[in-house]
């Protein structure tokens, strides 16, 4: 199954983590953090899970993201520990809810950011195919990945055109929306049509099982991370 493939692929990750492991971790972190159960062991596990994605980003040399997320964490915890006890009544409730939502959701978000920022589309598609996800899901998902950057490109071109016409600011917001969206729709429809024609002439949709030459696979790091995740699940489900 694993032929030695020394063809170069676009590379985004620094530490080799399989997309499937990343996906598993994302689910783990977001579920456990969101559910907000507290217990003796969970008091240790929760902070670890919050820090895990930041560590992964750190090892992947995403300095800017690490700085941003660490700062956000720091502010949130400072608020929770220093400011929250000083407030009472309505304000306590408001700030408590706000901080609570953030600390529950942010780690999952950071993990998702790591997943997307360090995985190329080819790796992701390969991972889905290895997980036996049906073609009916794999193909639309890969089209979405392909489409996003295209739509963004088009959007910026239209913004430029509006700037030159001097219609980027002021005037009624509804008009602005219309000016942006109508040309965008026109372009997107045309691109979509040409894109699918091209894909069909390359044999997409054949009944044979597709092969995928993108190399993904589990390594030491994957095993380590999976063990951590499984342990967290066990702790979460038992206590």
């Amino acid at each position, binding site marked *: 199954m694993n032929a030695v493939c020394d063809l170069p692929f*676009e590379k985004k990750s620094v530490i080799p983590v399989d997309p499937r492991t990343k996906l598993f971790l994302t689910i783990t972190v977001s579920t456990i953090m969101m559910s907000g159960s507290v217990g003796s062991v969970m008091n240790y596990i929760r902070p670890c899970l919050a820090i895990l994605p930041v560590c992964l980003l750190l090892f992947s040399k995403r300095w800017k993201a690490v700085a941003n997320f660490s700062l956000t964490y720091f502010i949130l915890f400072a608020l929770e520990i220093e400011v929250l006890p000083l407030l009472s009544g309505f304000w306590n409730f408001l700030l408590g809810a706000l901080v609570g939502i953030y600390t529950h959701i942010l780690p999952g978000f950071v993990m998702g950011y790591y997943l997307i920022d360090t995985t190329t589309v080819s790796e992701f598609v390969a991972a889905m195919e290895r997980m036996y996800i049906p073609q009916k899901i794999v193909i639309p998902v890969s089209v979405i990945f392909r489409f996003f950057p295209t739509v963004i490109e088009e959007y910026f071109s239209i913004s430029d055109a509006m700037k*030159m016409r001097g219609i980027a600011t002021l005037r009624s917001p509804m008009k602005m929306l219309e000016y942006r969206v109508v040309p965008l729709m026109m372009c997107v429809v045309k691109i979509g049509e040409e894109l699918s024609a091209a894909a069909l002439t390359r044999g997409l949709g054949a009944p044979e099982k597709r092969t995928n030459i993108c190399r993904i696979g589990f390594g030491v790091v994957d095993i380590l991370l999976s063990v951590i995740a499984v342990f967290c699940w066990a702790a979460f489900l038992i206590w």
Partner: protein
Amino acid sequence: MIKLKNVNFQYMGGNEAGGLSDINLSIPDGQVVLLCGRSGCGKTTLTRMLNGLIPNYYDGDLDGEILLDGENISKLPLYQTARKVGSVFQNPRTQFFTVDSTSEMAFGCENQGLPQEEIIKRVKQTAGQFAMQPLLGKNIFCLSGGEKQKVACASVSVSSPKIFVLDEPSSNLDISATADLRRLIQLWKQQGKTVVIAEHRLYYLRGLIDRILYLQNGEICAELSEQEAHKLSSDEQKEMGLRPFDLLKFPVKPRHPAHKQTFLCSDFAFGYTQSKHAINISSLELPRGEIIAVIGHNGAGKSTFARCLCGLEKKCKGMMTIGENRYDRKQRLTRCYMVMQDVNHQLFTESVEEEMFVSMALPEREQAASFLERLDLLPFKDRHPMALSGGQKQRVAIASALVSGRNILVFDEPTSGLDLQHMEEVARELTALQQIDKTSLVITHDYELIVSCCTYVLHLEHGRVQAQYCLDDAGIERLQEFFLGSR
């Protein structure tokens, strides 16, 4: 062996151009066939029949038989046709399914379910043949148009179909990328593949073609060998709406240098990354009221220069001086105007007239009408801009610039993918703008357009000004050297 027997086709929706009638044709294996003719003559339709997109993707009334080695293509599912026929399309932006060039090369074979080792072997082999190892493993969105087209051709080649169908593959390419394309087609020819190309630009195919089919109104109305085509006089070629096989044969009109006023661009420096400047021009003096061709290879900084001139790049601190007046970036946004390559991006409203009003500080019907009349758009003033033809849309964009009093217009590749007649139409528009004293800068790879109307050349290379000259006799020689010398 491709065989078409009494084929008729009409697109769904009726009277649209591009239908075909009574096509009888047989193409033996290994032949390189050029389809040419005016826009809307049915070239693209014919290519779509060969790769099965008609009738499997584009709806319409088809009768007759399209046989490939005795099998009726129109009855086969597309994925089976795809094994025999590979297609390359006009727009390099929209023919990729993946985001990674290596995956893209493998895509066709992966769909066929070939074993991994086999695919890897083939991808390597093709990359070697096309000398494109440096392009492997790149994000498609980081490649230039020429590089994308090269990856597209290579990807099709990996699944080694018998027949290659190319629909205007050179329209978005510069001269050196076009030369690369020529080499790829040459390679296919040597491998004994059948190649069918629908194309407007003919010069780069010189010496490769076995057979030329000239289409008019959906019928094949002439069949020539390449030698016969070379013998056509330039009047005959013009009559047929064909661009020349030999660029040197295209009629040129040397201009006389007129001592006009100039405008000055100073300190135009800009880079997309901090370390590297895409352009770095400390001072550039250009004549006013001329049609200036901006030439240079891909990545020379032509578009970046145009964007800075129009005030679209915030980080570019350059100044433009006209006479006594200095214009900074924000002021340039209201002084200059760019007609984009995809003009659909800059038409926003529901009617042509409204499009004028949006650009006017005080909407005045009569003034708008006078500008529309000048550009032959008055009869269409109530039409929706998106319902107009490509040339008309371009004119609406120009009119909206004129009505807001712009003096400098920038055109980004206004003639990519146009036939001779439409190219001449653009040339006439540009000349008309010069007559009302507007300055035009035309970013282009189109030699025929430059010699038809431009009066001045600005040659950029590596973000700097390589040369600037007037298109008099000596200037035309320099221009020819740029276009033909680099072949």
